[in-house]
Structure formats: structure tokens, C-alpha cells
């Protein structure tokens, strides 16, 4: 007898009502049940950060959370960054600075970067470097990622970004 629960989750502003087995990991729920394959699986034990999403505005490892725990929560995945076909300044900066090579860590890294800039719109390079220590990248050696995040920070400041404000509005229903 499988332990099934009904959950209601908002992902990237859209509500989903589904039934899930209790042991289903949030990352698998997003990928398989919702078809949002942008969030990737790296290690399944919370070390690499590849599966990073925002849960109620905070970055988490979605491989260490059960989908059933996300009932009632608002989640943001990489699919929620671009709006109406327009890349988010972070995505544009990643492209311009070549902050990705294989792209596998990129979705998780983008969301973590998004959070870092929400918390601190004017980070120093060392703040960014320390902030992304939560997310492993095997390809880039991190340098171009840090450049991209700093570049995005200045773009966002120029566009009048305010810490903390955008995040809640964007992810809560």
C-alpha cells in the first residue's frame, strides 16, 4: 500500500494540484510530475546543489525535501526566471560572460545567484564567491560565474532593484 497524499503547490506562479507518494523527492516531482526538467539531479545527498530551487523565497536542496512537504508552498525554478520570452538579467549576464559550459549546474546556480542578489544587491566579489560555495560546478572553475553575477548585480541596480521585495511578490500566489 503506497502512502499517497494530495498536495497543492505553486510553481513559478502557477498552481498545481496533484497526488504524490510521500517518499517522492521534490526534485523528482518537479521533473516528472510537472514536466519541469530544468531542475537537475546531481548527487541526491545534498552536497552539490544542482537541484537548488527557491521554496517560499529561500534556496533549498530539492533532493532533500519530499514533495509532500511542499504542500501550500510557493516554489521558483529556473523556468520561472525568464518572463514573456525575455531572459532575466542573470541569464543574460551568464550568456555574455560564458558562465556556463555544460549547463548542468546552471539552473541551480542561477537560482542561488538570484537569492544572493536579493539579499545583497551590491555584493563584493568575495561575497559572491562565498555565496556560491553551496553550488558545485565542475566545468567553469567559478570565475566567469562570479563575473556574471557581479555584472547582473550592476544591471539590476541600474534597473532599480530593491532587496527582498521582488522575491516574495514573484513567487507567492
Amino acid at each position: 500500500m503506497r502512502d499517497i497524499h494530495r498536495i497543492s503547490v505553486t510553481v513559478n506562479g502557477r498552481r498545481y494540484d496533484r497526488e504524490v507518494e510521500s517518499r517522492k523527492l521534490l526534485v523528482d516531482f518537479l521533473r516528472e510530475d510537472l514536466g519541469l526538467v530544468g531542475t537537475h539531479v546531481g548527487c541526491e545527498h545534498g552536497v552539490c546543489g544542482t537541484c537548488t530551487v527557491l521554496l517560499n523565497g529561500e534556496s533549498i536542496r530539492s533532493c532533500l525535501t519530499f514533495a509532500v512537504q511542499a504542500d501550500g508552498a510557493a516554489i521558483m525554478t529556473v523556468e520561472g526566471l525568464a518572463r514573456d520570452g525575455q531572459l532575466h538579467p542573470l541569464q543574460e549576464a551568464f550568456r555574455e560572460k560564458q558562465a556556463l559550459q555544460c549547463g548542468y549546474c546552471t539552473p541551480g546556480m542561477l537560482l542561488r545567484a538570484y537569492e544572493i542578489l536579493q539579499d545583497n544587491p551590491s555584493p563584493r566579489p568575495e561575497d559572491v564567491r562565498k555565496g556560491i560555495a553551496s553550488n558545485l560546478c565542475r566545468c567553469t572553475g567559478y570565475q566567469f560565474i562570479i563575473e556574471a553575477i557581479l555584472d547582473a548585480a550592476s544591471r539590476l541596480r541600474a534597473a532599480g532593484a530593491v532587496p527582498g521585495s521582488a522575491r516574495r511578490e514573484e513567487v507567492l500566489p
Partner: protein
Amino acid sequence: MTAPLSPSPPRRWVGKSIPRIEDPKFLLGRGGYIDDLAVPGMLHAAVVRSPHAHARITRVDVEAARRLPGVVAVVTGAEAATLCNPLPDFGPAPDKHVWRCLAVDKVRYVGEGVAAVVAESRYLAEDGCDLVSVEYEVLPPVVDPIAASQPGAPLVHDALGSNVAYERTFVFGDVERDFAEADLVVRDRLRWHRSGGQPLETVGALAQYDPGTGMLTIYCNSLTFTHFLFMVANTLKIPSNKLDIRPTPAGGSFGSKFWAVKVAVLAGMLARLTGRPVKFIEDRVDNISNCDHHGSDRIYDVELAVMKDGTLRSLKIDVVDDYGAYIQFGTGTHGNSLAQVVGPYRIRSVRYGVHAVLTNKCQQGAHRGFGSEVTNWVVERMVDLAARALAMDPVEIRRRNFIRPDQFPYVIPTGNMYDSGNYDGVLTKALELADYAHWRREQERLRREGRYIGIGVISCQERSVFSATEFWFWFDQPAAKVTSAPESVTLCVDAAGNVTATLYSNAFWGNSPDTVVAQLVAEEFGVDPASVTVVYSGSNRGLPATGPGGSRFTVMIAGAISGAAARIKEKAARIAAHLLEVSVADLEWADGGFRVKGAPTRAKSLAEIALWAHLFKHSLPDDIETGLVADKVYDHPYTTMPSDDRKNLGVFYPFVGNACHIPVVEVDIDTGAVTFLKYVAVHDAGTMVNPRSLEGQIIGGTAHGIGTALLEEYVYDAGGQLLTTSYMDYVIPSSMEVPDVIVGHQETPSPFTVHGIKGGGEGGRMMTPAAVSAAIDDALAPFGVRCNEIPATPERVKARIDAARKEHR
């Protein structure tokens, strides 16, 4: 020496750091990686892994697993052996070290697959694995390669009769004379432990069998050597033209997705068995313990013969390499070593003894550098030892021995050739960027404060584009003297004038193939790279292609594109001549079309020519076929055969770049921890196609190399238990473990490749361990510490500091 093949500079697109063509889909989370694919009715597989290093399988009970609701099939090793032949194996005796997708009679390493479960979900498949009950008769393991090579040691493969799968000593040049004449011989024993690519994405495959057509289609993030795939078909017991392996982008490889056939075979076998699509994705434990891609695991005894003026004369290398339980690529990793075994130096002779030993561990495969990074480390360790013995500056001793720019192409004692180079230029540039003199002063100042700062200076080669000969020149009577390692492309200019490039191997490992191809095509046709479409073909669409590996892809695809573009231009010129009513000799290629020399307004653009070519057959000369498309299979442009006596291995890896890395480190003598104060890397990989891209790979490769130098090791205990089974214990660097890398470039083109490109993707990692070891020794020079083991973990460094201090008392 042939004339340069490429159009001379100025180049319009080659050399530009354009943003990458492939990025948007990855940024949007639409990368299309293997696990992103799903088809109706798809099942999921998981593998039951051996908990023992060495054991006979006495019983496999799958009944409980089969009965679990949701489980569709369970396959034991014995059953798999009826469904599949052994896996393709390029080792010395494939019929004696038989390698199968699941173990049959015994398990030979912790993690080896024993059974596979297929179920409606991965969760259920793992539940099924829990219910598979395997009885083992545990056998004594062999873990130490030296012990494994002794008579009487337990055998990994009984049929082989020995754990020494291969051994031979090669002599190149007059080693004995060079040693006899030497003023000084320095010796050391060096130990390089195994590490591996560990990309964030594991290997995976999705297989579908169509009983109506007999076609087995396998999507996989590994697809190299498409012209060898008939071997995989043979393994799967299907006709070779009934197998289509389709590539998906790979989330990194670093060697570990090079010919990773086992996962594809498992998925294919299970799809045929169940009659439904089957997806098998390695989990992290699979990818650490059962990946078939551990890196070199070597014990070296080395002697370097030196003259008192610092001239390096000769090298004697004896190496034991622990290959693990199988030896799929033979001793190819030593071919990589022999390609550049003298480093950038005029060393005159080399003796190289290799002992390939089997043990109860996961087998070796490819790890960025494929064995040559180890030799780089070894040679530089010995040069530094000689420098220390002669009280000579490490920069000076290198300068004295560099092959000079006027000596290229330079044939090294093994017979391989270095095509071009300017090693002193690279070194000088690195010293400038590093502000070397300043750091030497800082070192002095900080030493007085009780801090231990060190500067490493190394100069090493980065060979690129292997020839197939390096897999068989080990044997006097090789089973198959394979000499093909091509890359192919199809270029199509459609009726609207848009260009599509089709690639035939899994080229995307993070190495920017779409961008590089678009830039090369743009260079040929004068189009915007953003307008070029790059598609990846499945294997059954024909053209043979080897894929990335040995830093070969850019060089080889440039050759293929150049060849296909030339064929297209030839046909286009004939059409243009016909349309313009001139002869082909009157035309010149300019501004994306053909124009009449001296009358530039009389021209036809490529788009116009294409339209005619596609639609108006009868308006063109009779022998011109409809369309404007060309294939090119580009074979290795410079390979020569080994001599029969193997005293000369021929040219097999001739496009050789060079780099100088200069790290400045601080060593904490209480803990042995190494931190970076600065890091400079100057690379010369010939002409760069996309400098920013190459820089990214150099920086990433350096970070990867720091992992190798300080952090990463697959650790097996004395009983063969793998102690590093997760990312908690196999530690790859985060952003906090690696410094900013100041990258410098030098471009010494190859005379033999299109545009003078050389391969550069592996280079970063090929330098770092040597550089970091040198820096550690330099920091700890007051103690006389010698870094002779990789990784130089804090514990190992601390042990050496304490041992040296004890000695001084």
C-alpha cells in the same frame, strides 16, 4: 613539412569571443539532457551492486524482486550473458579478462553490477534491488598492485593466469650511454592516486526497441567512435545496421563519458527483453563505484640523468599502473605519456617500463589528460629535484633545456613529433603576469614573519588529437592495427541560403561544439555564426566520427568543415561560373559569394547559388546534381606507423601545445592546508577559435587540477572496500577552494591543422598538479619537504613537514 592549410589572417570569426550559440536552451532549463527525455510506457532500471571486492557469486535469488508490484523484469548476470555478448574491449587479452555488463561467475570490485531490475519507476526499481538476494563466497582481494603482481597472489581473472595484464620496457635512444656520461643522476619514487571526472551529470541511456522494424534506438550521453558501434551491436546481438545511438548533450564528461558503453548496453538489453522503452541513469554511487572511468593509479621509479650545467640528458621511468579489474583501453594512457614524455625539453633518450596490473577495483578509463597529466607531474618533479641538487633556479634550468623555436617540428625520442612551439615565450609571459620578482620578495618577507609562501613554476606539454596507433603499438603482433580516428561533418546550404552543419558524434560535453562549428562555418562562408544551425545525428546515419577526447574535437571538426566547405565551394563556383557565363578561373570567393575578378559587381551570393542548385537542375551543366551539400570525413592529418622493433613509435600525437602555470601558495604548517594567493596560467594551444571559451576551459581545467592536486582520490582500503562512495568523501572543489586564475595566451599555430588550431580542453588539468606540487615544495623548502604523492592532502603535507622537522632535530 606541408604548407599551411588555412586561409591566412585576418580572420573574421575565428578568434572572436562570441557568446555561445548553445547557451539559451541551457539557461532556460531546456537542455535536453538524457534524463530530460521521456517516452510513453517508459520503464526505469537500477543495478544491484556487489558489496564485496572479490567473491564468487554462488546464488542469485530474484523471485521476491520479480513479484514486487511494479517490477517488470529482473535480470541476473547469468541471464544477461545469454542476452548479450561481452562488452567491446581493447585490452591485451579480451577473451581472458572478459568484461560483461553484469557479473556472471564472480564479482571483481565493490560496486560491480550483479543484477538489474526494471520497474515502473526508479523508486520501485530500487525497491526491487533491495529484494534481490545474492549469496557470495568471499575471496581474498588483491588491492595493492605490487602485491598483486607477485606469484601466488589471488587472481582477478583466473583465465589470465596472472594479474599482470601487460608489461614491457621500451628503450628510445641510447639511454645507457646518456646515463654513463651524466654528471648526476637524481632518483625518486612518486605516487599518483586515482581520481576521476565526476561530472555533475552521470551516464544515462534511454533505449527503445521496435519489434516491427528490429531497430534498437538508444539515446545516450556518451557516443564516441561511431564507426566502432558495430561492436556494441555485436554485444547486443543485433545486426550492426539495426542499432541507432542518438546523442544527447552531456552535463560534463572530463573523460568519463568517453565510450561509456555499459550503460547503453544495459538499457538496450533491458528494452529488448521487456519490449518497452527502458531508461537507466547511473546514480552518484554507480558513477563513483561502477563507472569504468577511474583515472591513472601509478607508482613510479624515476631516474633523471643530468649534466652539471643543468642539461637534462636522459630519463628512466618504471611505472606500475593499477588498472583495476578490467583493462578496456589497454595501456593507451601510457601512449599519452609517451607522446610527451620528455616534456618541453631536449632530453635525448628515454627508457619506459610499464607494468599494467589488475586489482579488485573499478577499472580505469579516461580522465582528462588520459595519463599524460601524470607524466607532466613526474617530469617536472624530477626537473625540480635536479634543480635542487644543482642549486639551480627552477626557471633557469627550464630555459636552458627548452626545445628552441627554430627546432620545430621536433621529433622526440619516442618518435612522436611536437609540431610547433615557443616555450620560452610562454614562460616569460607567465613570469610577467605573475610578477614573479615581486612574489620572491614577498616570500622572503613573509618567511621572516613565520609564514610559508611558495611559488611554483612549471612548463608542460598539452598534446592533442590522438591517433589510433597508440592503442596497439604496445604489441608486436597487434590483433587489429586500427588507424582510423576521423571526425565528420555534413554541410548543407539550403534553398534559402541557410547553412546547417550535421555532427556525427556526441560532441557536446560542455566544450562549445555548436559555437566552434558555427564560427568555423561562418569563417568559410562569410555568414553570421548565429545563422548557422548545428544538428547532431544518430549513429546510423552514416558518417564515422570519434567525438571529443584527447582535446581533438576542435582540430578535427575544423578539418572536416574545411573539407566539406571546399567541396561546396567547388560546386558553387561551377554553378556561379555557369550563371555568370565565365570560367571558374575568372572567379574569386569574396563577401559570401563568388564574383568575377576585376568586375566585382558581377557576383552571385551563396544564397542565390543555392537556390539555383536546389531547384533548377536543367538550367545547369548536366553533371551537376541537385542540391548544395557536402560530406567530409576528416582523418587524422599526420600519423605515421611505428617501427617493427618499436624503438620508434611513429608520430601519433603531433599537435602539441604548451603551458606555464605559476601558483603562489601558502602552506599552514600546523595543518598542511594549502591556500592560493595567486594563480597565473599561460597557455599556447595554437590558434584560438573562441578565446573566451578556451579561457573558460583553462580556468575550469585548473580548478579540476586543483581538485586532483589537493582533494580528490578514490580510496580503497586493504580489503578492497571503497571508502569514498559519495560526494561527501570524494570531494570536488567548490568556489572557495579555487582562486581566480589570471589567464594569458600565446598562439603558435600548428603548421598541420586548419587555421593552425591545436587542442586545449584538457590543458588546465594537465598542468596544475605539477605546478601545485612545485609551489608546496617551494613553500616548505626550509624543511626540505618533497611533494611526491598526489593528492597532496593536508594530512600528507603535514606528515612530511613533521618528518622533516624530526630529522632536523
